[in-house]
């Protein structure tokens, strides 16, 4: 028992249960003291969940050092080199451990969210309701959206945490304790988010628009609270990334010698640092509306439901750039390695990340063309949205220029990179029809939008994410993922996904509305839907192959300690896996980062010990 309790994660979960119970007790007690009816499930559950997450953070040990500092005691960085595998199940300050923790959490969340999708996709395989009730369908569909979004945010944080200090030659992130805190906040947040299923679910979609969300079952409160907490986690993590990249760069690493991935991460962090507060605020306002009867979004009290949509989309549109910018950074990072050529137009690619981020702040209204927003706002939002194509086009141009006449090799990471480019192109080209007011009014709330969105997410995030896992797995473990299994994974997933998303757009154009549990048999969409369900299962099979591969390769994979991919990036110049404190000798940047194939060019030079 004691041994089990010494594992941080289990301790945290026990404390969370305790905290939830105490929270429910306190709130009921207060109600009794205030002479209100003792039991009100909604406020008790919300307060319990909030206190439970705080107790989790205490139990797991994420705030121990801060409590010590507040009590005036000395704190020191623990020496974690002898901890072995236990480091991964408790609080560790090492950015590499936190990165891998984030990565595992991200995969768990995406498997959960994916299984939700498979469930309701099976329901859609034929018309009529087969095995889900309407409420169950709505809950699964809504949670699929938000669980995947949190999973992606966590996955983005995984690679930012793991790679940025290695790429810029820092010993760790700027604020290691804050970093651990941010990760451990995501764990109770995910639990709270998923607990909404046990509390009646909710039927609002991932957007949670009022007034529907004001009337939904209590589950929606857990959804709002979970997302708010996860949002706080992303805020502190992005704060950390920004500070690290500003302050901890190696000598000679000027702005235009930063790896593109770091540029993308900076743009991403800039968005999530600022805009995330607004989704938190909008969700909390609905929570207050439900708990205290405040009428922000209730037209009967003079409130304005459109205000919610403005606040919500001010984050939620830039959020998609939060997902894709690091992914596009990974594509730009890996293409030159496998094309053995310099990255074409480095400076423009670097700037384009910030271009996308800045324009991304000005386009949120395109989600609201059909919502009753002021009419005159539609056209400016349309043009600003179309403008996003320009910096994105810069990236595509650079990728094509990099591939042109390169000596391309095709290991698994490169396959995923190329699939990412193709799928993101599909997603990008289907964007303008949604951005243009005239066509969007026809397309809005159809499966066309769903297809477009999944294309951008898979192209901009999922495929680059897998490319990154295959690419950096040797760095993390010292072993290589099996290439054959990797190719099976790829050839199961990529074609199936393209079929799936293309059919989504097709049925959307034929008139299938998004988010519905059933569709009209006379539309003749049953065959398409059945093929889509089959494609969905093929993707799941691919992911299963990947998971088996990861577990198998962790023990039995080919041992590789050297520069597997012949990369120029500093982390590959030292043996894998990385030692606890990264580089033994600091390095200096003396050349351009992506000058592959140019004779005599050097990027980093390790300083001799003085």
């Amino acid at each position, binding site marked *: 028992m004691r041994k089990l309790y010494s594992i941080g994660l289990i301790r945290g979960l026990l404390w969370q249960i305790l905290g939830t119970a105490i929270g429910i007790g306190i709130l009921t007690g207060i109600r009794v003291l205030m002479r209100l009816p003792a039991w009100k499930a909604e406020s008790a559950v919300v307060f319990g969940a909030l206190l439970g997450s705080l107790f989790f953070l205490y139990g797991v040990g994420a705030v121990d050092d801060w409590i010590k500092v507040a009590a005036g005691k000395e704190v020191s960085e623990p020496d974690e080199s002898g901890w072995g595998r236990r480091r991964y199940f408790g609080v560790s300050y090492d950015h590499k451990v936190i990165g891998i923790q984030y990565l595992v959490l991200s995969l768990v969340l995406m498997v959960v969210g994916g299984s939700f999708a498979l469930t309701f996709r099976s329901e859609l395989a034929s018309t009529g309701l087969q095995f889900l009730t309407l409420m169950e369908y709505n809950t699964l569909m809504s949670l699929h959206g938000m669980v995947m979004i949190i999973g992606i945010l966590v996955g983005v944080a995984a690679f930012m945490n793991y790679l940025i200090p290695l790429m810029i030659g820092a010993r760790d992130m700027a604020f290691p304790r804050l970093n651990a805190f941010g990760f451990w906040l995501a764990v109770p947040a995910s639990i709270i988010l998923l607990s909404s299923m046990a509390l009646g679910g909710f039927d609002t979609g991932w957007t949670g628009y009022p007034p529907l969300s004001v009337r939904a079952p209590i589950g929606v409160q857990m959804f709002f609270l979970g997302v708010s907490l996860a949002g706080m986690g992303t805020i502190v993590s992005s704060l950390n990334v*920004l500070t690290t990249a*500003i302050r901890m760069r190696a000598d000679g690493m000027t702005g235009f010698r930063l790896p593109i991935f770091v540029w993308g991460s900076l743009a991403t962090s800039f968005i999530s640092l600022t805009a995330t507060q607004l989704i938190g605020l909008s969700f909390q306002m609905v929570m*207050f509306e439900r708990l*205290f*009867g*405040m009428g922000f979004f209730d037209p009967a009290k*003079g409130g304005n439901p459109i205000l919610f949509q403005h606040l919500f989309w001010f984050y939620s549109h830039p959020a998609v750039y939060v997902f894709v910018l690091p992914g596009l950074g990974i594509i730009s990072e890996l293409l030159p390695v496998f094309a053995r050529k310099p990255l074409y137009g480095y400076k423009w690619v670097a700037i384009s990340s910030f271009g996308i981020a800045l324009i991304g702040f000005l386009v949120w209204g395109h989600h609201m063309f059909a919502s009753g927003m002021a009419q005159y706002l539609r056209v400016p939002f349309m043009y600003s949205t179309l403008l996003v194509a320009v910096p994105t086009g810069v990236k595509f141009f650079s990728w094509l220029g990099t591939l042109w006449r390169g000596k391309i090799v095709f290991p698994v990471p490169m396959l995923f990179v190329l699939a990412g480019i193709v799928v993101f192109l599909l997603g990008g080209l289907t964007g303008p029809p949604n951005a243009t007011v005239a066509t969007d009014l026809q397309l809005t709330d159809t499966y066309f939008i769903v297809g477009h969105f999944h294309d951008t997410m898979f192209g901009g995030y999922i495929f680059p994410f897998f490319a990154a896992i295959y690419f950096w797995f040797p760095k993390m473990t010292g072993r290589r993922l099996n290439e054959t299994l990797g190719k099976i994974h790829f050839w199961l997933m990529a074609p199936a996904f393209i079929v799936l998303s293309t059919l989504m757009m097709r049925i959307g154009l034929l008139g299938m509305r998004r988010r519905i549990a059933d569709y009209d048999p006379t539309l003749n969409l049953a065959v398409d839907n059945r093929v889509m369900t089959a494609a969905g299962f093929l993707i799941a099979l691919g992911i299963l192959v990947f998971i088996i591969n990861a577990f198998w390769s962790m023990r039995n994979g080919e041992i590789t300690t050297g520069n597997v991919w012949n990369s120029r990036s500093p982390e590959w110049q030292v043996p894998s896996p990385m030692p606890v404190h990264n580089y033994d000798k600091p390095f200096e940047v003396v050349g351009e980062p992506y000058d592959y194939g140019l004779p005599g060019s050097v990027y980093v030079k390790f300083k001799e010990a003085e």
Partner: protein
Amino acid sequence: MEHPSKSSTLRLGLLVLGALAVLTAAEFAIALTINIWQILAVIPILKALLVFYYYMHITRLFEEDKDLNRESFSYKLATNRIGLWLFLISDSFIFGGLMISRINLLGLTRPDLIQYLGLGVTTVLLISSFFANRAEVSMEYGDHKQFIRSISLTIGLGILFLIGVLGVEWRLAPFGPETNLAGAIFYVMTGFHAFHVFTGMIFLLIVLRNGRRMLYSAEKHWAVEASVVYWHFVDVVWFFFYPALYLIGTLAQS
């Protein structure tokens, strides 16, 4: 760079307080007489700039590093400052969102509140900001006694502010959060702000406790600086919330 003397730094703090007080009084007078919202919107910006420059030392962010060794105290201090300011930027978006909601939902109307109480709590918070600055300056010059006195006064004034808003205004307001929009906006804005005041007071209390145990010195007092800068930030937020809730526009129909 030559350091200004302690007394001149303290005098500067007092001058800034004077300027802020004049601006606040002007705000109040304008609201009672001509009530032009454009002027009432500009004055808080001026007040905020004064505080950013003189109390929160925004220029320290742009100082060159004296010591380029990553492990040195001064390098880490500058890193911490950037982290803190990034957090403040992030936090200001939540207050910005609240302001946008207020403008969207209430426009040129305002909740029916007790004017003199509003002016009173604003003054209290302003003076607490002055003492927070005084505490930080005292610590910079190693004057522990004055530091303890000033920080205790800051906390005391903070408690007074919370009593004024939560204890008096919340109880005496002629509406509840569910009555009407003005009530909803009033409670959510003051609630979010009071939560920040509360957390700021926790930081100040920790700093006070550790300060009494002589854990800070003239060279190393990052915790003091951070909690004081955060306190000023909370005050700046109130600069904007005060006219938005009490001064701008006509009374909302209830």
